[in-house]
């Protein structure tokens, strides 16, 4: 009797785990499956495509697009004219290639990558020194600074959007694409700075002060200890915070949509995808493969920090 109850229990439990996992990953399965399906297969509720369609991925990643949309007669013509130079051939083919206009994925990907990685770099650099300061040094106003950082959590993006837009317009940044790009970079840095400060501050407090003290007794300066001891010891935390900031900037839509509105060349992935979805070029397989390619780098990055987090660097550094 007891045994039977246990079996029912574990089946029930397994079912519960299964339901939770399905709830979490169902949309991802949907996305992956649809990105590989042909149009005639969309209505089929099964996740397994009847025939694998890689066209959308090839198009987005610009693989094998040379002869697409080129009429057969032109291809034949080119083959029959062996004395044409390569440059001439390319010029003729270029007339027929407009896939880049449909959705220049690689371009938007690059924009997002530059913007997010630079913003995260600036944010983490500032945060290393800032959070070292309020987690380690005593000075007047220290706790006010620390609490002020948390207070920033209360301000939503929309509260900052209008005044910042007004300020950057008044400064003349918004009139050129480069200026817009720089202002967005600054804004992303600011948006991730409080989180970086908070997370790094928490981490620095876990590093035993005795390690630093030992270095200082041996004559190292404060900067020396930050550079030689704090940074190497908290490298995993710094990488984690960097990736976290990167992800925030990579995902941002609100500011990008307002600031970059008139510079299509400088779109980041979120606005690019949203624009694609609202355009006549919206086809499910194209949208889903673009979604997959937008999500994958972020998911991969997250998986790496998840492992990093487990290794406690300090445990080996000092023995109490």
């Amino acid at each position, binding site marked *: 009797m007891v045994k039977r109850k246990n079996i029912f229990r574990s089946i029930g*439990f397994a079912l519960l*785990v299964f339901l*939770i*996992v399905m709830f*979490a*990953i*169902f*949309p*991802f399965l*949907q*996305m992956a499956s*649809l990105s590989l399906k042909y149009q005639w297969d969309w*209505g089929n*509720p099964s996740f397994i495509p009847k025939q694998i369609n890689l066209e959308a991925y090839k198009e987005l990643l610009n693989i094998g697009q040379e002869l697409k949309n080129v009429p057969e007669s032109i291809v034949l013509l080119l083959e029959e004219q062996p004395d044409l130079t390569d440059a001439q051939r390319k010029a003729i083919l270029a007339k027929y290639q407009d896939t880049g206009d449909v959705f220049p994925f690689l371009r938007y990907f690059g924009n997002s990558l530059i913007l997010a990685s630079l913003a995260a770099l600036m944010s983490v650099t*500032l945060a290393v*020194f*800032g959070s070292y*300061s*309020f987690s380690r*040094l*005593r*000075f007047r*106003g220290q706790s006010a*600074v620390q609490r*002020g*950082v948390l207070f*920033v*959590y*209360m301000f*939503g*993006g*929309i*509260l*900052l*959007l*209008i*005044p*910042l*837009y*007004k*300020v950057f*317009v008044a400064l003349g940044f918004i009139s050129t694409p480069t200026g817009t790009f720089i202002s967005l970079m600054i804004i992303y*840095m*600011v948006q991730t700075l409080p989180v970086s400060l908070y997370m790094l501050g928490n981490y620095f407090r876990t590093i035993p002060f005795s390690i630093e003290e030992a270095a200082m007794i041996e004559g190292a300066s404060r900067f020396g200890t930050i550079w030689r001891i704090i940074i190497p010891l908290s490298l995993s935390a710094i990488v984690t915070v960097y990736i976290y900031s990167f992800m925030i900037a990579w*995902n941002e*839509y*609100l500011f990008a949509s307002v600031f970059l509105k008139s510079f299509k060349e400088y779109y980041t*992935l*979120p606005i690019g*995808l949203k624009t694609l979805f609202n355009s006549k070029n919206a086809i499910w397989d194209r949208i*889903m493969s673009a*979604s*997959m390619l*937008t*999500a994958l780098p*972020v*998911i991969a990055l*997250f*998986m790496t920090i*998840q492992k990093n987090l487990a290794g406690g660097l300090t445990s080996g550094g000092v023995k109490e």
Partner: protein
Amino acid sequence: MSRFTHSSDGAAAAIKETAVQKLSTRAQRDERLGWSLVAPSVFIILALILYPVLYNIYLSFFDVSLSEGNTFSGLANHQEILRDSEFWKSLSTTMIYVIFTTAGTTLAGLGTAIVMNKKFPLRGLIRSLILLPYVAPVISVVFAWQFIFDPVNGIFMDIFYDRLHLFSERFSLIGSPSTAVWIAILFAIWKNFPFTYLMILSRLQAIDENLYEAAEIDGANGWQKFRHITLPEVYFVVNAIILLRVIWNFNKFEEVYLLTSNVKVLSVYTYLKAFTGTMDLGQGATLAVLQFFILIGFILFYVKKVLKW
């Protein structure tokens, strides 16, 4: 002998003095270094977060124009908004959205944390799979959700119309505002429950196993153990998460706007007012300020009355 002690006293005093001096210069040095290290961050936060917030409050009293200057209009913006029925509608949408997403996220997170705290095969893999919704960019998952509820090809209509015959026709759940808000709520719960789950799980793992064993010896059943041990232990972290979740979801823009344009929570309403059509930045600023003060009011109420801090 007495002279000797005297002189040694003097030496000790001298040593003490230099030590004090050294200490004070070290404290002074720390103070200077402390401020100079944190100054760039503080300056940037003041200039690009605090100043804009104040500037936003200032703007709310003006008729704002990007090309010409601002014209002072007093409380005209505020009055106009309070008389606008759209504003009250979006405020109530926001309330519904915040209440149900917060409740849903917290309950789903708590349940998941309790399940994941037990030992079972493949737990490590499953724990990371569950984090996927939280990790993936909003823009990359909204289209999958839209497809699920797509009237023509979506799996939802396939099940509920084709197989179960619950509806008389295929229709778009995301298409009409009255149903779209529930999809947006479900989406937000799905997107954010992993965060809640993670926070609660780390608290659960810190609970002393002996408490449960002692309760079992006393004959407590599963529910009693949950009610009298688990719940009090996670009480604080759950309340803190609820507070954060309310703040975040009250300000939520992307998770709503990118999924559907039919759900006008306050942030979306403000965005549309300020950056589409006639681009009324003054009214937008006023809306943002009102939203901010409503949030502050709620936080004070929650902290004083519910948490009793």
